[in-house]
Structures are given as structure tokens and as C-alpha cells.
């Protein structure tokens, strides 16, 4: 039974893996290939996978800063918003998580309960009130609207607290005996020890913010203030039938996150897996 099914099983297994790989990779290759085509080539039937002629002209309208679709600006806006948001999250969450993991103070349980409790509130409940709050601060149509609100989220604190709890206490004790204050222990002992976790949180926050779609579509109005995801939908409107340009925009929005994902793959995948086991 075993040996008969194992040969059959092994080839079946590789066929399944190969099919899945094609299904997952082909659309992405098609996106890349189309972005390097001329428009007639992109709409040719039957479709051809190799651009003929090979051209980067699809990318050229993206560099035009004065057009209604300044993709280069959107790219910079996305970089600023996503890195600003990730930096703010990692700094504020790490400080708060340290207090909740290592310091004793009245109200600790209350604060932790309150913070964790908000993890279960669906995000759409914050849409309308946060829009009004951002409007009151005068931050509509600015990058502040993208950097600030999600930095109040509880995930980073929750995640880093778990990590800090698992760190050995001996080094902290030693630093304390050497006369270090809590802030010094935090920056010199805890932060270096937790570097992989902090990097993971930075990457996850960056990816989430970079890909955010609904919020920027509604809080940003001027084309020059758009992020890439928000801009892509007006790019689709402006170049309705020019597929190479639209796919070039999609490639520009994909490359940074794919590069970041490949660089941090193990950490990202592991933290996703670990988040599941909490349930």
C-alpha cells in the first residue's frame, strides 16, 4: 500500500506544487511583461509572454511630475507615510510594551486590558469618527492623516510585550546594579536583544501602511498628495486602455514590498504563523 502510493503520491505531489506555482507566479509575470510592452502588443490575441518590441515606454508617463498622475510623487509620498508610520509605531509601542512587560505601577492591568480589548474592535468602526478627528486637526489631504491614526493601534504593543516578557532578566539586573536607569536599560539592553522583533514590527507596519487603500482614497484629495495605492485607481481612470502604463504603475507599487518581503521573509512568515497560534 505504502510503496505503491508513494511513487504515485510523489509525482502527484510535484504536479500539484508545479500547478500552484504557475497559478501564483503567472499573474505577476504577466504584470511585469505587460509593463514592458507597447499597448498594441499588450492587447494582441493570442497573448504573448515576451514583449515584442521590448520597451520601457510604459514607465515614462509615470515620471512626469506635472501630469495628473505623478507616480514618482506618489512613490515618495508612500515611502514617507509608510516609514513615518512604521517609525512612530515601533518607538511608541516599544516604550509602552517595556512598561507593561517590566515595570510595576498602579493601573498596569487596567491599561493592558484596555489596550488588548481594542484589538477586537473591527477597524471600520473607526472610519467615520477618525475622518472627523483628522478633519478637526486640519490634517485631511496630508500625510499626517496616514502616519498618525494607525499608530494608535494595539497590535505593536501586544506583540512587543510578548517578546519583552520572553527576554532573560539577568542582563537588566546587571545593568541596574551598574547604576543604569530604566531608560538606559531599555535602550542599551532590551532594544538590542529584541532587534529581530523590532525589525519584524517595522516591516509589518511598513507593509500594512504601504498597501493601505480605503483610508488614503477617502482622506486624500489632491493628486499630488496621493500614495501609490490611492493613485493607482486614478491611473486606471486616466489610462483606461493603456495597459502597459497601468501595469507599470502596479509594478512600481509592488517592487518595494516584494523586496522588503524577500529580505525579511523568515521573520514575517514566522510572526504571521505565531499570531495564528494565539487564537
Amino acid at each position: 500500500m505504502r510503496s505503491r502510493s508513494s511513487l504515485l503520491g510523489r509525482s502527484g505531489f510535484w504536479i500539484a506544487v508545479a500547478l500552484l506555482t504557475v497559478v501564483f507566479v503567472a499573474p505577476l509575470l504577466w504584470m511585469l511583461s505587460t509593463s514592458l510592452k507597447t499597448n498594441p502588443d499588450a492587447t494582441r490575441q493570442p497573448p504573448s509572454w515576451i514583449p515584442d518590441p521590448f520597451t520601457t515606454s510604459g514607465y515614462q508617463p509615470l515620471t512626469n511630475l506635472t501630469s495628473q498622475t505623478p507616480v514618482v510623487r506618489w512613490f515618495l509620498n508612500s515611502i514617507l507615510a509608510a516609514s513615518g508610520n512604521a517609525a512612530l509605531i515601533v518607538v511608541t509601542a516599544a516604550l509602552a510594551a517595556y512598561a507593561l512587560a517590566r515595570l510595576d505601577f498602579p493601573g498596569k492591568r487596567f491599561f493592558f486590558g484596555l489596550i488588548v480589548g481594542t484589538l477586537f474592535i473591527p477597524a471600520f468602526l473607526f472610519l467615520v469618527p477618525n475622518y472627523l478627528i483628522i478633519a478637526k486637526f486640519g490634517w485631511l489631504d496630508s500625510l499626517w492623516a496616514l502616519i498618525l491614526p494607525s499608530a494608535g493601534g494595539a497590535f505593536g504593543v501586544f506583540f512587543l510585550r510578548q517578546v519583552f516578557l520572553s527576554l532573560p532578566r539577568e542582563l537588566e539586573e546587571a545593568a541596574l546594579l551598574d547604576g543604569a536607569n530604566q531608560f538606559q536599560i531599555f535602550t542599551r539592553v532590551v532594544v538590542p536583544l529584541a532587534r529581530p522583533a523590532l525589525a519584524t514590527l517595522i516591516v509589518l507596519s511598513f507593509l500594512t501602511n504601504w498597501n493601505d487603500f480605503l483610508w488614503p482614497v477617502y482622506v486624500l484629495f489632491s493628486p499630488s498628495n496621493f500614495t501609490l495605492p490611492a493613485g493607482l485607481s486614478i491611473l486606471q481612470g486616466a489610462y483606461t486602455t493603456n495597459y502597459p502604463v497601468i501595469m507599470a504603475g502596479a509594478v512600481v507599487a509592488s517592487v518595494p514590498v516584494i523586496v522588503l518581503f524577500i529580505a525579511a521573509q523568515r521573520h514575517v512568515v514566522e510572526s504571521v504563523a505565531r499570531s495564528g497560534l494565539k487564537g
Partner: protein
Amino acid sequence: MAAVSSGVERPVESEPEVLSAGHRIARHGKATPYLFLAPFLVLFAVFIVAPAVYGIWISLHDYDFLLPNKPWVGLANYQDLFSPGGRDAGDFWQAMKATGIFTVLSVPLLMVVPLAVALLLNRSFPGRTFFRAVFFTPYVLGVAVVGLLWRYLLDPNIGLVNSYLDQLGIHRNLPWTTDLPWAWVSLVGMTVWWTLGFNAIIYLAGLQDIPPDLYEAAEVDGAGRWQQFLHVTLPGLRPVLLFVLTVTILNSANMFGQSFLVTKGAPGNETRTAIMLIAETGMRSFRMGTAAAMSYVLAVVLLLVSLLNFRLFRIRGESS
């Protein structure tokens, strides 16, 4: 991180407590923990706690962002949604229905297909990490990229999908984005493609936590592959299955970008989801009171669904 670790060179005197070995002594000043918490708490209070309460307040007013008066209307916004002739009742329940259809169609697929992929990847074989990354990659792309890409792939006239169906001799020009049931097939299909990797990774972690000796014991008892799956794998995955189910339902209920970019709610408003309607009502028409009421109704429905999930899983857990 560099910003945190720089500027550390402060005088040690700033710590008032004296340490002496063997005695329990305050390790920090009374204010220290609150100083650590403060930056986060400011953001948390302004953008999480305040809006959670403010949203209820908004929903009890006729809150038109553009008008000076926002009169108190009590539960009128909610009553409007539940009375058949209400101004927004028709649109709202149509959108809730669209969200419901999407959830009912996508959740079973997103439970089963990723499990199959995880079982495949749970074997040890060369390149496992590579394939794990390949199946996860679409998930790191945003919905904007995924939506644009699939809108192009599913274009009735020049899209790759219809083009290959045509070559296979199957009826061509299928209206993937403009007619039913094709629009649902498209939205569900692209969502499975996009998010499958996330659930598969969680399953994979769960599978690796099942002790191998359980399988060995089952095999000694003469259990075949299928029986091992039923009696070892599934019970071992129970908490993971509950987590995946809950998260997948929540994500499906939040569906927005796919409909917004690919079908634009078409045909008619059939694929306009609840989130799409809430966003349009609140942040395009600026009728915030109604939009806030809609989001609380959706939240309560989701809460009931989650409670039902937990209950079902607990009952099944007790009986097994």
C-alpha cells in the same frame, strides 16, 4: 531604531533610588512607567478610544459634515436602517447582502484550499521555504495592485483569462466584471489567490505543533491516511481552525478594494459591499450619522457571528 538608541548618554544620577543587594527596592521612580506609556497612550486615546466613543455619539445625530447644525436624533438613524421605507434601508441591506454573499462564498474556500496547500507544504522536500514564499507573495501586495492586475486579467475582450478559455474552445467574452454570477466568481477567485498564503502559513504552523507520535500511534492502530487526517490532524488543528475561521470572516466582512476596483459594485449595486456603502455614505456624501449607524449595525452582526463560531467550536470540542 537608531533614533531610540542614540542620545542615551545621560548622567546616571537621574535615577533616584539606591540599590542594595538582597532588599526589594523600587527600581524606578513613580512617574517612569507612565513616561514610557505616554507617547503611545496619546495616540491610543486620540485615534482608538476617542473614535470608539465618538462614533456612537455621531450615530445618534443627523451628522452632515458640511452643515453647521448636527441635531440630536436619538436612534432615528438606526430606525431608518430597519424600517422598510427608510431612506437608506434598501441600499444598506443590499450592501449587507453583498457582503454576506461574498463571505459565504469565500470563507469555505479560504478554509479548505489553504489547508490543502498547508498539508502539501508540511512534507519535507527540497525548496519548501521557497514555495512557501511563492504562495505567500500575493498577500504582501496591496489590494490596489491585486485589483488592477485582476481587472486586466479578467477583461472580457483582451484579458488573459478569456483568451485562454477561448483557446481551450470554451465560450469566450465571459463578463467577468459586469454580470452575475461571473462578478462573484471573479471577486472570490481573486481574493482566494490574494490571501490563500496567509491562512496556509497559519495552518502550517498549527500542523507542525501536532506531535508526530500521534500519527505513529494511529498508524499502529491501522488508520489510513484519510483516517489519520480525520482523527489526528483535524482535532489537533481545532484552535487554529477557529482562529482562521474568525479572521477570515472578519476580513471578508471588510471587503472593499476588490469591488471598488474590479466590479465597481456592478452589475447595478449587486457587488457593492457594506464597507463600500459606509465609506461612500460617510466620506463622499458626508452623511456621517447614517454611516456611523451602519458601521455599528455591521459590527453587531459580526459580533453575533463570532460568538456563534466560538459556541459551535466549543460544542464540537466537548463532544469529541
